[in-house]
């Protein structure tokens, strides 16, 4: 999946100013950046929920345009888990499965994240962390080629976070391409093969984790990023 020179503005507000990146099989790309740098907009463009003004997004070598079938290959985890509130978790899962019309394997995920006791509960009664687990379940229950994750770890407890990381590495080994946005720098440092740092709608840095550290002579990634941000503020 390739994004090339993408521009998007909402009325006068220019959110993305020529963003390019690519997703490769077996690699995890982390998109970092302060609030309002365009991370979520970028992801929504890749899913066709937001329509870019300029530039090109292609999946499996085809421009996505107004196409929708390419979304069969994407497991998407939205940032804010908003569900039809009166459905039970089990109903939601089987509905999404039916709508996607693809084989789904969720029993393993349900036990991995301890969702068993919640399956019969309506979504409005779930806590924030449990909702996030349901969100993860919906994104990963299909055998997708790409995973696009917007803040996947928000609200997870340490144990679930650990299990999430294991699962992600597992998927990576299976040759899946992963794109995730995060504010947790050490997560990116630990998991990602590549880091894209977005700043005010532009790619400020794109490269390996080690490269970014080297640029800032051996600082850890968190310090390197704090450094970039404070430089930006003073500028």
């Amino acid at each position: 999946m390739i994004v090339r020179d993408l521009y998007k503005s909402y009325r006068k507000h220019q959110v993305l100013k020529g963003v390019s990146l690519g997703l490769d099989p077996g690699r995890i790309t982390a998109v970092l950046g302060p609030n309002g740098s365009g991370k979520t907009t970028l992801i929504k463009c890749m899913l066709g929920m937001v329509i870019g003004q300029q530039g090109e997004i292609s999946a499996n070598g085809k421009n996505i345009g107004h196409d929708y079938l390419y979304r069969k290959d994407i497991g998407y985890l939205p940032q804010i888990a908003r569900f039809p509130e009166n459905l039970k978790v089990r109903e939601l899962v089987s509905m999404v499965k039916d709508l996607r019309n693809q084989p789904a394997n969720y029993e393993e995920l349900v036990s991995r994240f301890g969702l068993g006791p919640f399956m019969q509960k309506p979504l409005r009664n779930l806590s924030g962390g449990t909702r996030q687990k349901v969100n993860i379940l919906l994104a990963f229950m299909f055998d997708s080629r790409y995973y696009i994750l917007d803040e996947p770890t928000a609200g997870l407890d340490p144990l679930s976070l650990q299990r999430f990381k294991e699962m992600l590495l597992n998927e990576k080994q299976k040759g899946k391409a992963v794109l995730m946005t995060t504010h947790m720098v050490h997560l990116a440092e630990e998991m990602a093969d590549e880091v894209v740092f977005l700043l005010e709608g532009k790619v400020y840095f794109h490269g390996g984790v080690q490269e970014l550290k080297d640029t800032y002579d051996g600082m850890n990634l968190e310090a390197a990023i704090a450094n970039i941000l404070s430089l930006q503020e003073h500028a």
Partner: protein
Amino acid sequence: MLKVLKYSFYDLSRSRWTYAYLLFFLLLTFGLLNFSHDLSKTIISLMNVVLILTPLIGTLFGALYYYNSKEFIDLLLALPLPRRSIFLGKYLGLSLSLSASFVIGILAPMLLFGILSTGLVLNLVILMSTGVLLTFIFTAIAFLVSIRFEHPIRGFGAAIFIWLFLAVIYDGILLLILIWFEHYPLDHFALLMTLFNPVDLSRVLIMLQLDISALMGYTGAVFRKFLGTSLGMSIAYATLLTWIIVPVFAFLWLARRKDF
């Protein structure tokens, strides 16, 4: 699209509003029949309720349902479904559910009071078909307005204004024009203006069928001459269908370009 429709319909079939709407028509029709014991008069009384209420409920529920389904729509947009299917499915789900409540609510008591053994079946069919058409028209208008306005309050305001305009204000303006220009022959103008308002057109269609068009005087005769023919009737129904198709295409057009 059928799957989206199925889940929307399923969702609505668990909503208490659907049942409140059904119960309202059941009680109303049953009550009217019980008091008057006259199927023909009951149909006339129902006409006035249907002409005001089906557009109003279509408008209100249309906007309410759209804004309430935002989460569901967001979920659907990330799935491998075309936007057209998502929005058409939602629209048909709501329109069909409202129409079902309306039709069952009127039909059940009518059958109980033996409508089939009278010559009034066609009258009832005309009443119910215009009610269903009005439901589809105003739900489409409400969807169009809701998709246009991000903010629910503005959306509701605009949708209710359109209902008020077509159900009430339009008639007032038409009446004023007719009074101001009473020395001119206006019957063709009145006929034309009626075609541009689905509520008025439905009213005329029902009145002609019920044979109370004499109440409309000379203009009534012109209407009768035009709409009484099968060509006129076809034009009237085609116009009502256009009132569905145009807003539906407009909201699908907007949905295709919208950022979510």
